[in-house]
């Protein structure tokens, strides 16, 4: 048991959570404007690929990040174009995006890099990873330092974004407009602001976040691109977003919880629990937590005399 509850467990939690947090924040923004993006998984995958592409061919992590963001921007616009302009069903577009990304990245990997499966850099084309950041003073504090310092750039960005997006959503007019768009677009239109513009804004921001999530995956968390490396993290992000009721700090906590269970499951193997059973854990726990959250929410709302969800 001492082997299980270590600092490594917490570090693992944090690492596992970060790409999910970035993705979930993006999904959250689209949820605010009422067009939840289920295609995040594919968008992340593309982001991861273009991050590596940029990093390799332009020779720096900044370029890699830039390429991922550009890819996210384009995909966000693309998603927006279909869902907003062409009024397509966002669920279908999301699913199609996932298929598309899976095909496209594999295809490009094989044609551009000439390899299948994974690309982790070569002599001629090394991958430039995101920098790790050591925080001077905090880094020296025993446990906390190990957690807070020495992470890659986008980990800190994700924390910052949780705060920034919280302020944006609940303390700025722009955030109000976005949430108004999701709840009652016509009210915003009548107030003289185009809800479509808000939807585009959210789609683009979501795209950019997907780029960050992808870049973190392939340049921060790992330094390689592997086919299908998003490995359903986009769907877990959807769950975290719902779980956290589209409220950034809560979404963050949900992602941490998910990461924690994953990390714990991994360590439970060492005391003899079958890996296939520990792999089930995050999913089962998510279902249980969903039930719990919904039940608690209902009870609380009834207690306050508000309408229950129907």
């Amino acid at each position, binding site marked *: 048991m001492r082997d299980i509850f270590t600092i490594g467990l917490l570090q693992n939690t944090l690492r596992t959570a970060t790409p999910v947090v970035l993705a979930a924040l993006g999904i959250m923004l689209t*949820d605010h404007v*009422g*067009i*939840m993006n*289920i295609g995040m998984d594919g968008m992340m995958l593309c982001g991861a690929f273009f991050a590596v592409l940029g990093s390799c061919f332009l020779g720096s992590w900044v370029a890699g990040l830039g390429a991922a963001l550009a890819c996210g921007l384009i995909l966000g616009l693309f998603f927006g174009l*279909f869902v907003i*302009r*062409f*009024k*397509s*069903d*966002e*669920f*279908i*577009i999301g*699913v*199609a*995006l996932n*298929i*598309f990304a*899976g*095909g*496209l990245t*594999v*295809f490009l990997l*094989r*044609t551009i890099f000439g390899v299948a499966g994974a690309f982790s850099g070569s002599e001629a084309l090394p991958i430039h990873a995101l920098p790790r950041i050591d925080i001077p003073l905090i880094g020296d504090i025993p446990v906390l330092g190990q957690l807070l310092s020495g992470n890659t750039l986008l980990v800190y960005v994700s924390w910052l974004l949780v705060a920034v997006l919280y302020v944006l959503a609940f303390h700025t007019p722009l955030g109000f407009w976005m949430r108004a768009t*999701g*709840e009652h677009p016509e009210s915003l239109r009548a107030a003289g602001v185009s809800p479509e513009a808000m939807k585009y804004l959210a789609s683009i921001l979501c795209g950019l976040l997907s780029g960050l999530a992808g870049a973190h995956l392939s340049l921060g968390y790992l330094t390689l691109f592997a086919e299908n490396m998003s490995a*359903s993290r986009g*769907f877990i992000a*959807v*769950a975290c977003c*719902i779980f956290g*009721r*589209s409220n950034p700090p809560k979404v963050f906590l949900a992602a941490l919880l998910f990461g924690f269970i994953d990390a714990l499951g991994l360590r439970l193997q060492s005391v003899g629990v*079958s890996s*296939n*059973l520990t*792999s*089930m854990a995050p*999913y*089962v726990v*998510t*279902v249980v937590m*969903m*039930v719990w*959250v*919904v*039940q608690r*929410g*209902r009870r609380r709302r009834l207690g306050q005399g508000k309408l229950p*969800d*129907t």
Partner: protein
Amino acid sequence: MKELKYLFSFPFRKKINLGYLFSLTLSVLLALLVGALIMHLSGHDPAAGYKAMLSGALSTARSRGDTLAKSAVLCLTGLAVAVGAQAGIFNVGGEGQLYLGALASAAVGGYLSGWPAWIAFPLALLAAIAAGGLYALLPGWLKVRLKVNEVITTIMLNSAAIYLCKYLVNGPLKTGERGISAGTVKIGAAFAFPKLIRLSNLTASIFLSAFIALAVWYLMKRTATGYEMKLSGQNPRFAGYIGINSGRLMLLGMTLSGAICGLVGMFEVFGIHKRFVEAVSNEFYYDGMLVAMIMRYDPVGIILMSLFFGALKIGATGMEQIGIPSEIVLIVQSIVIFFMAAENGITQSLKERLVQRRARKAARREEGAA
């Protein structure tokens, strides 16, 4: 929690009509064109590629059989989505239900392997229905009773089921047979569906599939229950007011959906593999889901569209054999979906613009005359 109803609101509104079929064809053609472009850019000959695809899917009796078998899977999974959707519940968990159905039937078929087929086979059938149905009932119940969003729970339960199956076939249910490092014991030889075409995957299960498809169509389109499901799926409040128990119908839709998925699993096992194998389904359900969504949950449409997607899938092997990566098929497939999903919005806005432009022009003419 903002319920995801807006996200999973079904496009019931639009019916399938000639116009839709026209734009469907157009979308497919456009997508194939884009696919050709990609092939051309990556240095492959598009004409040869499509020819290989066509012949891979349709040239021999065997390939036609395989295409039909794949289509049957898409069709049943698509109908499974549709039957839930009709009752207003969105089953994304078919993959897990399929796995459990396959495993349960394989276990029965293996355990009873010495028994007469007329006992064992129906029992296996029941096991598949029960496993799939019950596993769907759980999220259905959570939705109806506790108002827990079914989309997320079913997605999560998919992974849970797949890992559970992996655990069982690598552990407690693993066969001792030589050469099989993960899988259940072989089902009794007498229980397997007979092959209809030599060397192909097409087995007598196609008749059962056809029967199920017909039954689902009949249920959805011609029965009072289907009508009630439709009403409560479209507006549960209205349904409740009119005296329809929409909770019960949701459970029914979900259970049926799960049972169909379980049966698909069983058909794979009893038709092709003769035992449960870990890779019994490779996201078949999601493919079916797309077919269903493109065809707007219309049973007839699903049955027809699954033929196209089945051919695409089997034809991909033909392309691979001449060295074109099968990812191109995925790209073409997703482009078809993009076009289809956008079709409605595009034609509508075109129509609107056309009408208004005409009206404006007429007005200008009048002004000029006056």
